[in-house]
Structures are given as structure tokens and as C-alpha cells.
């Protein structure tokens, strides 16, 4: 058995190593073509050696490769290519005929200058390394990273939505507890009002009876002895009995009117809050609007005259307390938009299968840049402490929950109109027979 010489060993390894190795001279004649190159290119060494590289492989990127090799010659230095920028130099089949994943073998190439004794670069050797597996792993990793990033973005969005939902919940809970309080107070007021009312009723009939008695006395006035009569006349004159009789009846009537109004306000408060109600029910929107307008009347009466232009409305299935909240919001906003004195027009009607409620003011109008954001939570133009910034966003989500929509039209200096469309049926409240 003969020993291999150093040169033979090197030659053997260069030929059999599982890396493509080939070399070209300055004219691109192939001077070395190892087994890896032969196997993968299906061109044997005998077929390729001594021939021009581009003649055998016309598909190679000629000008680029020429430039690369020239640089190696001129600088007498290594050059590299990476699959990340240039997937392959030679289009070889990859080692995954079954599992697949890429179109061709991914390659990292190294260009090394082959120098003669004088240090001149006489040939350029190129190694071609199969990095398909790495490339696929890298790409899978990149894909998973992108997926993770996407999921993270989604989560961030969800967290944002959750925070918004929580805020709205807080706000509606606040409103609900205010409503509960109002309903409680209303209930408490109802009791004294009840007995004052009934007392007033009795009082009125007593007054009537007293008047009859008084009339009888007045008829007998002339028969009273002279000595007594002048004293009685003086008394009658002193209290201005004619006026007193007239006014007494008026006072009782006015008091009963006032009491009726108190009863109405209390009823409105109770209607408005509808304690504990969160289920959709059939309701008359005109009634809702009227109660809301009564509740906020005090807040708007110095600013605006309310004009009602009610059309024909069927009852709709809705959560009336929530819609009241929306109407109140719109009407209060409308009043706040009016600087001195203006008009708030509340109109209703039907359009196709839907009903609409419009609240229009003659206020300042909303600038376009603000208009884009008015339904955003916490967006407010009111001074700190005046508005929560949640009113319109809460309104928006209430209308959305009702399967309706709310739109706004505004012209600077002319006013703003909020228009709400609602379907006849509440979407979530499907009954069993449907």
C-alpha cells in the first residue's frame, strides 16, 4: 500500500469534499471542477475542463460574475456571495426532492485568489456551499417572527379595545347609578306629593264649601244690626274680601297645576332611568324624546328654543333608557354649541325600514379636524372638568348595539346635525319564535 503524497491528498479532498469547488483562469477557462460540481451540474469534469465557463453555462449572470472575478484578481483578495442576497450562483437541484420548500439549492460562495510564486493572481477558485437547510430554517424563523409580530399587533389592538370597552362600562355604570339615585329620589318625592295632592283636593272642596257658607252670610248682611255691620264692613274692606275670594280659588288651582308638573317631572325621571332595565322592549321614541327634553329643559331653556318636528313613528324594539341617554347627550351638546340664543330642532320620521331621529342646532358648527374625532373615546373640546369625552363615543356604541348608525353633518358658523337611524328590531334580542 503506497502512501498518498501531500498533493495527492489535497487533490483527493478537493475533489470529494461535499462542497462545490471549481477554478477558472483569467480567460474564464475552467481549470478545476470537482465531483460536487459535476454531480449537481450534470456536466462531468471531462466535459467542462478547458472550456469557457460561460460557454458551458450560458445561464450564469455573466457581467456580474466577470466583475466579481476581476475584483478578486485586481485586489488579490477574497470575495463572497450570500444566499440572502443572491440565492444561488448555479441553479442546482436541492437536497429536498421530497420535503421541498425552495425552488433550487441555496448557495454561499467564496471566491479566492490563486496566486503564483510572484504573488500574482493567475486563477480564481470558487467554493459553492449548499446552505439550503439553513436558508429554509432561516426563512421559517422569519415567517414565525412575522406571525408573532402580527399577533402582537392584534393583541395590542384588542387590549386597546378592551380598555375602551371598560371605560364605556364605567361610564354607563356611573350613569346607571345616577339613574338609580334619581329614581330613588323620585320615589321618595312621590309620597309627600301624594298626600299634598290629596290634601289639596280636600282643601279645594273645603274652599268651595266655605264660599257657599260665606255667600249665605253675605246674603244676610243687611239684616245684621247696624252696630255690628260697620265693624264687619271694616273687616271686609281690610282684607279685600272680593279679591281674596277670587284669588283663593286661583291659588288652589295653581298649586294643583304645580303639583301636576312635579308629578310629571318625577314620572319623567323614573321613565328616563327605567331602573334595572337593560333588555330591549317596544317603546315609543316620541315619548322617550319628550321625557328627555323635559329632564334637560332646565339646562337648555335659556339657550335655545326647542322645535319639535315629529313625523309618524312606529314603536321600535330598543333599550329606551340607553336611547334616552343618547338623546340627552345630543340635546345637551346642541345647547352647548349655541353661544347666545338659538334653535334646537328635533325631527323624526321613517326612511324605508328604519326610523330616524335628528337633532339639529344653530350653533357654532364643528371644524373638520375635530369632526373626524368626535366619536373617539376621551376626545373632548370642552374645558377640563366639563366633559368626560365619553358622551359621543358611548352614544356611538349604544346606537351600534341597536344595529343603527349615527352620522354627523356640520357647517362652521351654521350649525350641526346629528342623525340617528334605527331598525325596528333590536338585533341581539331575537325572540324564540324567530
Amino acid at each position, binding site marked *: 500500500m503506497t502512501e498518498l503524497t501531500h498533493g495527492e491528498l489535497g487533490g483527493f479532498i478537493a475533489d470529494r469534499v461535499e462542497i462545490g469547488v471549481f477554478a477558472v483562469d483569467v480567460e474564464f477557462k475552467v481549470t478545476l471542477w470537482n465531483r460536487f460540481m459535476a454531480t449537481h451540474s450534470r456536466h462531468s469534469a471531462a466535459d467542462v475542463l478547458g472550456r469557457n465557463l460561460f460557454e458551458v453555462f450560458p445561464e450564469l449572470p455573466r457581467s456580474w460574475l466577470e466583475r466579481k472575478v476581476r475584483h478578486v484578481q485586481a*485586489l*488579490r*483578495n477574497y470575495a463572497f456571495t450570500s444566499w440572502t442576497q443572491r440565492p444561488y450562483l448555479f441553479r442546482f437541484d436541492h437536497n429536498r426532492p421530497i420535503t421541498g420548500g425552495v425552488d433550487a439549492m441555496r448557495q*454561499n460562495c*467564496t471566491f479566492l485568489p490563486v496566486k503564483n510564486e510572484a504573488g500574482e493572481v493567475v486563477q480564481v477558485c470558487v467554493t459553492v456551499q449548499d446552505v439550503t437547510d439553513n436558508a429554509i430554517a432561516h426563512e421559517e424563523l422569519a415567517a414565525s417572527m412575522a406571525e408573532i409580530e402580527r399577533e402582537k399587533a392584534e393583541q395590542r389592538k384588542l387590549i386597546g379595545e378592551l380598555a375602551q370597552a371598560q371605560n364605556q362600562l364605567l361610564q354607563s355604570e356611573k350613569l346607571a347609578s345616577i339613574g338609580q339615585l334619581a329614581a330613588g329620589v323620585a320615589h321618595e318625592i312621590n309620597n309627600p306629593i301624594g298626600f299634598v295632592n290629596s290634601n289639596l283636593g280636600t282643601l279645594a272642596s273645603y274652599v268651595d264649601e266655605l264660599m257657599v257658607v260665606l255667600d249665605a252670610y253675605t246674603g244676610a248682611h243687611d239684616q245684621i244690626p247696624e252696630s255690628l255691620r260697620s265693624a264687619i264692613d271694616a273687616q271686609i274692606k281690610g282684607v279685600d274680601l272680593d279679591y281674596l275670594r277670587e284669588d283663593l280659588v286661583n291659588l288652589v288651582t295653581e298649586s294643583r297645576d304645580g303639583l301636576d308638573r312635579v308629578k310629571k317631572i318625577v314620572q319623567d325621571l323614573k321613565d328616563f332611568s327605567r331602573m334595572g332595565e337593560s333588555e330591549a322592549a317596544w317603546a315609543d321614541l316620541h315619548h322617550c324624546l319628550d321625557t328627555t327634553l323635559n329632564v334637560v329643559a332646565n339646562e337648555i331653556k335659556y339657550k335655545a328654543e326647542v322645535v319639535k318636528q315629529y313625523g309618524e313613528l312606529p314603536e321600535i324594539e330598543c333599550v329606551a333608557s340607553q336611547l334616552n341617554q343618547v338623546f340627552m347627550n345630543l340635546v345637551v351638546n346642541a345647547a352647548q354649541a349655541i353661544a347666545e340664543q338659538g334653535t334646537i330642532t328635533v325631527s323624526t320620521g321613517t326612511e324605508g325600514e328604519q326610523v330616524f331621529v335628528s337633532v339639529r342646532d344653530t350653533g357654532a358648527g364643528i371644524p373638520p379636524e375635530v369632526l373626524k374625532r368626535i366619536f373617539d373615546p376621551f376626545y373632548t373640546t370642552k374645558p377640563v372638568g366639563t366633559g368626560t369625552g365619553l358622551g359621543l363615543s358611548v352614544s356611538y356604541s349604544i346606537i351600534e348595539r341597536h344595529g343603527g348608525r349615527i352620522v354627523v353633518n356640520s357647517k362652521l358658523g351654521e350649525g350641526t346635525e346629528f342623525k340617528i337611524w334605527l331598525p325596528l328590531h333590536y338585533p341581539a334580542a331575537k325572540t324564540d319564535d324567530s
Partner: protein
Amino acid sequence: MTTALFSEDQRDALQELTNIGMGQAGASVAAVLGEFVQLSVPRILVLKPSLIPPALERIVGPEKVTAVRQGFHGDLRGEAVVVYGVAHCRELADLMGYDEVPDEATEHELLLDVSNVLIGACLGGLAEQISAEMGFSAPSLMATEVEVGSLLDVSRMDSPCALFVEVNFSLEKRSFACHLIMLLPEDQILVLRDAIDRFLASL
């Protein structure tokens, strides 16, 4: 600034050797690019790792940069970084004789190519001066369009100090410019110092 690892003579010699090496590099790069290359006098600093990013920032300025790193090994072991201002990256295609506007992969390949040429020429030139054998690993893209200060994560650097050699390339007829920074860890500074001593002794 601590250059105490070098004596005055050693430092001057290093400056001179680098200068000659770079000069030769300039000539061969000019031959490859077909443009006359202007090189600054090398700036040589020995810096603590934490001072490297601010030094880079001072030299390159506040613009966003793209950078390529390449390791070298052999008698001297270290890393070289080429820093390009973002605007200059786009001139590379034209410079390297590409006619079309390159896509991203082509642009990155160009960056790697040009960096390889510059690093190979400059470090090869220096290695030749001190008769050192040096090999290069494949260059890789460090970062694209980032702040200069965030380029190097020196918190992971083991060496207590590093030799920082900076050369500024520009082309006479174009606005293209870039910075080449060679970084050697402390043990390699000592190797380089010995090589300089041998060079001085051979004079």
C-alpha cells in the same frame, strides 16, 4: 484618550504603516472602481468599549447609517465595520456599474461587495506592511438605516479596551463617502505592537 498601550514611536509607526497600507488600498480600489479615491489620514484611538459608540457618532455625524461588518483572522484577529450614510448607499449601484435601479437584495449585495473590497484592500495593505497573514470571513449586513450610536452593542464586548482605526473614503468626482473602522481587542493590540516592534527593528 488612552494610547498608553503604545509608545510614541510605536504609535507613529502604526500611523505610518496604516497610512502606507491605506495608500496602496486606495490605489487598488481606484483600479476596481475606476475612480480616484481620497483617503483621510487614519485616526487611531485606544478606547474603552463604552466610548466606542460616542466616538463613532462624533466621526460619522448624526445621520442614519447602514453598516457592514467583516471579521478577519490569522496573525491579527478583529472586526472591520464599514459605515455608509443612507444617501450614499444609493450611489453604489451607479458606482459599481449597474445600469438599473437595484432592488433591495441587489443593493445589499452591492454594499457587501464594496465593503469587502474596501476592508480587504485596507487590511490587506496593512497586513502586507507588517508581514502578517490574514484571512477574511464573509461580510454581513449589520444594520440598515439606524442611528450611529445604536450600531455596536459594546455591552457584550469582553475586551477591556479596543484599538479603533478609522479611515474616511471619498471619491473625487462623486459625493460618495464612507467610513471604515477597524477594531482590535486588547490581546490583538499587543500582537500588533510586537509586529510594529519587529518592523521598527528591521529598518
